[in-house]
Structures are given as C-alpha cells and as structure tokens.
C-alpha cells in the first residue's frame, strides 16, 4: 500500500505542478466569469447618461415623461424648426418630436439625432411613450392598472408525482437539469482524465522507465496508482473550478458594480426579464405597484423552484453522483490504461479507442434524445443497468426517481464491471508495458489475457 501511495503522490504532484494544469485551472473560471458578466457589463457600459429634448405639440406628455437614471428629458417649446436649431447647438442625444396626435392614433412621432439613433435609445423612448399612452387609455376607459392585474390570469401547473412513495412535487425542468448536469460532468471527466491515464502509460512506455519501476512495484500497483492519482488531479481541478468560479464571479462583478451574488429573487427576475427579451433597464421603469405585483409572482415561482429542489432527493442524487462518477471513471480509466500499455505511441491508439468511446458517446446522446423524454422506458432501463452506459444514463434518471432495486442492480453491476475491466486491463497492462515494436491487434490482445506472467 505504501508504494501505491508513493505512485499516487507522484502522479498527482507532477500533474498538479504542470504549467498547463495551473493555467487551465485559473483560466477556466475566469472565462466562465467573463461570459457570465460580459452581457450585463456591456449593457451597463453602453448606458451613458442620455439627454433627450422633447418638443410635445400634442401636450399629452407634458410633465409625464419622468427622468430615469441615465435618461433625462428636456422639454422644449416653439416650432419644430426652432427646436431643431436649438438641438443642433447642444450635445444632447436626440430630439423627440411629438406632433399633434390623439391617444387613439399615436402616429408621426419622430426622433432626430446627430448620428444614427441607437436601437437601445429608440426602444427606451418607445417604451416610455407606450406606457404613458397606455396609462392615458386606461384613464379614458375608466380602467386602471390595478384592475387589469386582477383580471390577468397566470396559470402555473403544479405537477405531482403519484408514486408508491406518496405524492411528490415534481418540476420536470429542475429535475432533468440536475441529472443532466451530473451526467455531463461524468462524461467529460471520464474522457478528459481517461485519456490522461492513457497518455501517462504511453509516456512511461516510450521513456522506457517502466521496467525500472516494475522491478520495484507490481504492474497492477503502478496502474492503480496512476488511475487513482489522476482521479485526484481531476477532483482537485473540479473543486478549484467551483471555488475559483465563485471567487471570480464575485470579484469581477464587484469591480464593475454589478450585484454579483443576487438574491434568488433578483436572479429569477433577471432570468425572466432575459427570457422575455426585455432589457434590464425596462425593469427599472416599472411603476412601484407593478414591481410589487411582479414580486408576488416571482415569490411564488421562487417558492416553486425551491420546493422542487427540496423535493428532489438531493442526498440521493449527490450520493449517486459520487458513486457513478468514481465507478464510471474506474471502469473506463483502467481500459484507457490498458490501451496505453498495448500501443507504442499515441497515433496507434485510434483503433482501440473506438470501442471505449462508442458506449460513452451513445449513452450521452441517448440521455438527451430518449432517456430525458421517457426516464422509465425500456431503453432508459437497460442503459442504466449495463455498466458501460449506466454512469451517464442512470445519473439522468435518478432525479426522476428510480426504484431501489434497479439502482441497487445497476450499482452492483457497475462494481462488478469495474472489477472486470480492471482485471482485463491489468492483464493487458502487465504484458503490454514490456512489449515494444509489435503491432498489436485484438487477437493478440485477447491472447495476453491468458498469458502466464
């Protein structure tokens, strides 16, 4: 055990100290933070103080156009020609000309600018005018906004899962998201770090150090030490990514004055706003009543979301994630190690990579196309039982609720599967690492399984 520990340490330390590891670990959260912050940042940066001169011949908007944080209105009087002259002498953003119109037929409103008026300015002015015209129409029709709010219907379906375990609240989106994210992480982890195992073995082979090492330790110890060491590297990287992403997002947004850790409410608002294709400023233009009314709605939805999360068997999901994460990695990791041992250089790995890649890719694709739509169907069932696809497919299924026996069977088979692949890999490995300059095919590999070494 002491020797495996030494090998794990070496595999871990040499990789963690590599420049590429450090750069990847630091850069990824920064990129992530940039992508998260950038859109908001761009909106804020483009939002310089704008002053719009208003010539209102209709008199409908007198004193009604309120100044916003970065949008000021300056009323003008006189003819349009005069106004244009006055506007030309200032460095104001635009001149808004409202001819004599009625609220029933608000046409002919024009914006004059020195340059092309930006789309954003145009939208904001349109919104301000629209709102005011709507208000006036409400007044004219004797309705008010409050009444309208009461009339508006907002239906949200609560989906309840009537299963043996009793009623469960069930939000399909949250449920699938939890599983899919877990499955994606497992998929990438297996690939990224499985290939690292393979490269590590090939490196030892081409460096010809392997004979020195296995005159000190058993080939199996060397292989397992490498697999475990690289798993630790991967876990470290993921952990650092999570921590650093959080730090980076906080830091970047603090630097640019964006509320970085928005309360769930604000987050939801932002999400909703974005979903409706409205700009953030739009929110600020809401009247206090509106905002209050919206908040109620938000609060309800937030409660929904939180409830869905609470109703998800989070501990179960987390437990399954760790299990399938490690199980899947070990299952495939040893096979990657065996490939590395069988070949002399990386270009020869292609033919052996195929059978390993295919089940992974298929389970990934099927997760989206079939399993998500029908998490209890036959395809989902079998793919979540077979060890080669279960780490990904089962993870997608777990949040929807999986009978205990299926989970138990799947886990037991995964353990057996990884013992089996490790056995195969160890046999290929011990022969392969000392074999040079021989083109290996599957027939040759299968012979190695039964060599007495």
């Amino acid at each position, binding site marked *: 055990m002491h020797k495996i520990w030494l090998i794990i340490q070496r595999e871990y330390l040499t990789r963690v100290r590599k420049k590429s590891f450090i750069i990847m670990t630091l850069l990824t959260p920064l990129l992530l933070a940039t992508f998260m912050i950038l859109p908001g940042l761009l909106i804020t940066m483009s939002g310089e103080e704008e002053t719009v001169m208003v010539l209102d011949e209709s008199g409908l908007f007198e004193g009604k156009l309120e100044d916003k944080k970065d949008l000021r209105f300056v009323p003008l009087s006189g003819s349009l020609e005069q106004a244009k002259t006055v506007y030309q002498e200032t460095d104001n953003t635009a001149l808004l000309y409202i001819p004599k119109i009625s609220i029933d037929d608000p046409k002919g409103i024009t914006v004059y600018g020195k340059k092309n008026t930006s789309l954003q300015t145009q939208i904001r002015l349109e919104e301000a005018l629209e709102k005011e015209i709507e208000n006036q129409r409400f007044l004219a029709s004797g309705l008010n906004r409050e009444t309208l709010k009461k009339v508006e219907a907002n239906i949200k379906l609560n989906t309840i899962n009537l299963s043996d375990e009793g009623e469960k609240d069930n939000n399909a989106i949250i449920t699938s998201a939890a599983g899919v994210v877990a499955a994606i992480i497992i998929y990438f982890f297996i690939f990224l770090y499985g290939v690292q195992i393979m490269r590590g073995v090939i490196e030892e082979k081409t*460096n010809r*150090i392997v*004979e*020195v*090492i296995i005159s000190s330790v058993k080939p199996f110890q060397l292989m397992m030490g490498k697999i475990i060491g690289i798993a630790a590297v991967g876990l470290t990287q993921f952990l650092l990514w999570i921590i650093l992403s959080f730090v980076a997002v906080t830091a970047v947004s603090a630097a640019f004055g964006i509320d970085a850790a928005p309360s769930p409410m604000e987050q939801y608002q932002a999400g909703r706003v974005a979903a409706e294709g409205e700009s953030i400023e739009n929110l600020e233009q809401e009247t206090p009543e509106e905002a209050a009314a919206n908040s109620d709605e938000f609060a309800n939805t937030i409660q929904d979301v939180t409830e869905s999360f609470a109703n998800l068997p989070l501990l179960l999901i987390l437990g399954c994630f760790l299990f399938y994460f490690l199980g899947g990695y070990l299952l495939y990791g040893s096979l990657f190690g065996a490939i590395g041992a069988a070949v002399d250089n990386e270009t020869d790995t292609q033919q052996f990579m195929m059978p390993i890649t295919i089940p992974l890719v298929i389970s990934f694709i099927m997760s989206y196309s079939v399993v998500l739509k029908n998490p209890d169907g036959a395809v989902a069932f079998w793919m979540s039982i077979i060890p080669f696809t279960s780490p990904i497919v089962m993870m997608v299924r777990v949040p929807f609720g999986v009978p205990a026996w299926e989970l138990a069977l799947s886990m037991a088979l995964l353990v057996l599967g990884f013992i089996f692949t490790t056995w195969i890999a160890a046999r290929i490995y011990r022969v392969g690492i000392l074999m040079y300059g021989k083109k290996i095919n599957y027939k040759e590999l299968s*012979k190695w399984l039964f060599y007495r070494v």
Partner: protein
Amino acid sequence: MSILKIDSVSKRYANHTALDNVSFSIPAGCIFGLLGPNGAGKTSLIRIITQITGADEGEIYFRGERLKPDHIKDMGYLPEERGLYKKMKVGEQLLYLAQLKGLSKTDATARIKGWIDRLEIREWLDKNIEDLSKGMQQKVQFIATVLHEPALIILDEPFSGFDPINANLIKDEILRLRDNGATIIFSTHRMESVEELCDNIALINRSKKVLDGPVREIKDAYKTDTFQVIGNGHLLITSPDFEVLEQHENHGVFRANVKLLNGTKPNDLLRYLIERVEIHSFVELVPSINDIFIRKVKETHHA
C-alpha cells in the same frame, strides 16, 4: 555461499522457449558475467530474477530463500532499455525511485547527497532529465539502481551508451560496490567488455546454459598449453615435445606460438629456448571468453 541459486528454470512464450532448464548459482560478493548473444534468454532470466515475470518451471533461491516480493528491495536493476521520467527533476526522480525500493525519505536524501558529490552531478540536481546529456542521464540511472544499497546489482549491458571516461568512472564504482560486499551481475553480449572484470560467468546460448563457473577455472580448462615467444635470433624447433603452430621472423626478431606436447611443462620449453635464442617475452596464450564461447557453441552443435 551463493547469493542466488537458479534451479532448472524454464520460461516459454507463445511461440518460442526463452529459457530451457537453466541452472547455475552465483557466489556472494563476486562480479558475475551473464554472457550470450542477443536473444539467448539473458533478459528473460533477469526479469524472472527481478520478479518482473515468473518462471514456468523451476525455482530461484535468493540467499537460500525462495524468491519472494520482499527480496525486491535487496536488488537493483539497470535494464538494457534505459529510461527516466523526462519531465521530472533529477533529485526528485532519485528520491522517488529510492522510496519505491523502500528507503525512507531521510535515508534516501542523505544517500543521494553522497552520490551526487562522488559522481559530480550536484549542479544538475534541479534540472529536468530531458535537459541532461545522454551520458549524464546514464549516471543518474546508475545512481538510481544502486541508491538503496542492494545486495544484488543486476546491470544489463552496463557500458552501452557511456563514453570511455564515464565508463571507467562507472567501472570503478562497480568495483567499489563489490568491495563493499555487493554481488554484481553483468549481462552482456559483448563478452570482451566484461571479461577482465568478471570473477564468474555463465554462458547462455539459445535458451540453454552452455557453461558456467569461475573465469579462472574455465580458462584453465580451455587453455591449450600454447605459449607465445618473442625474441632475437633464428628459432628452429626440432624437439618432438614442442609443436610450432605459427612463426614469423622480421629483421632478426621472431615471434612464435608454440604448443607443449607429451606432458612437458612451460619451463621445459623455456630451457630449450634459452640455449638457442635470446628471449624477450614469454606469454601463455589464454583463450578469450569469446573464443571459448565459440568453441563451446560449435561443440554443442556438433554433439
């Protein structure tokens, strides 16, 4: 007392036999030459001794005990295919390999210090292996092989890749290790390169042991009672006790290879010569291991 006893060891691969019923033993504290042409089975035997692979038949005893995993820490193995982690620093690499052999970190560090001073590679300690010259890498690898002070040191083609200066340096180190009580196995197909160093040898050809024993005895067994004489004068041997195998004369200096017959002794030849010519040199012609090997192989083929 033998440190290693190889008892009827056989090893077969899918389509050839690497070792066929090989037996010999290696005395403790000697330098042992494991000799034979390429593909004779030397490396297979070494891999069985170092427990990289197992024998199909037969047993190996290390210090009288059947070979077991624990013995690994008492062996140091320098494979023919040298290699180190390219992107690892010299110091770290030595430490790692020594720890894999069961050395504690403090012991290993202290010993590394001693070795790098003796082989003058102190300034390379923090360099990556890939930045070192080939000869330098060989030195590092040699240190890694002997750092845990193994009782049995196995060197496969030890001098390939060394320039003459470093080869001599390593030779001296090997002799020093032997004097400190270690047993050294040289495995090589270049027999002349180790002849002068070896105390004992075993010859292997086509997976079979051809011959083994102390070099002295083997040579005695194979010597032909032939002497080379160089001197002034005109040499003419007429005695039936001596047979001239070869004779050259040049500007009054002669050189002749003379074989003793009928149980005569070297001194008889000397006495016979002294009366006739002026002798400058009188040397016994001892067959080289290479000659013996070729003769032996021919014999076994004809047999």
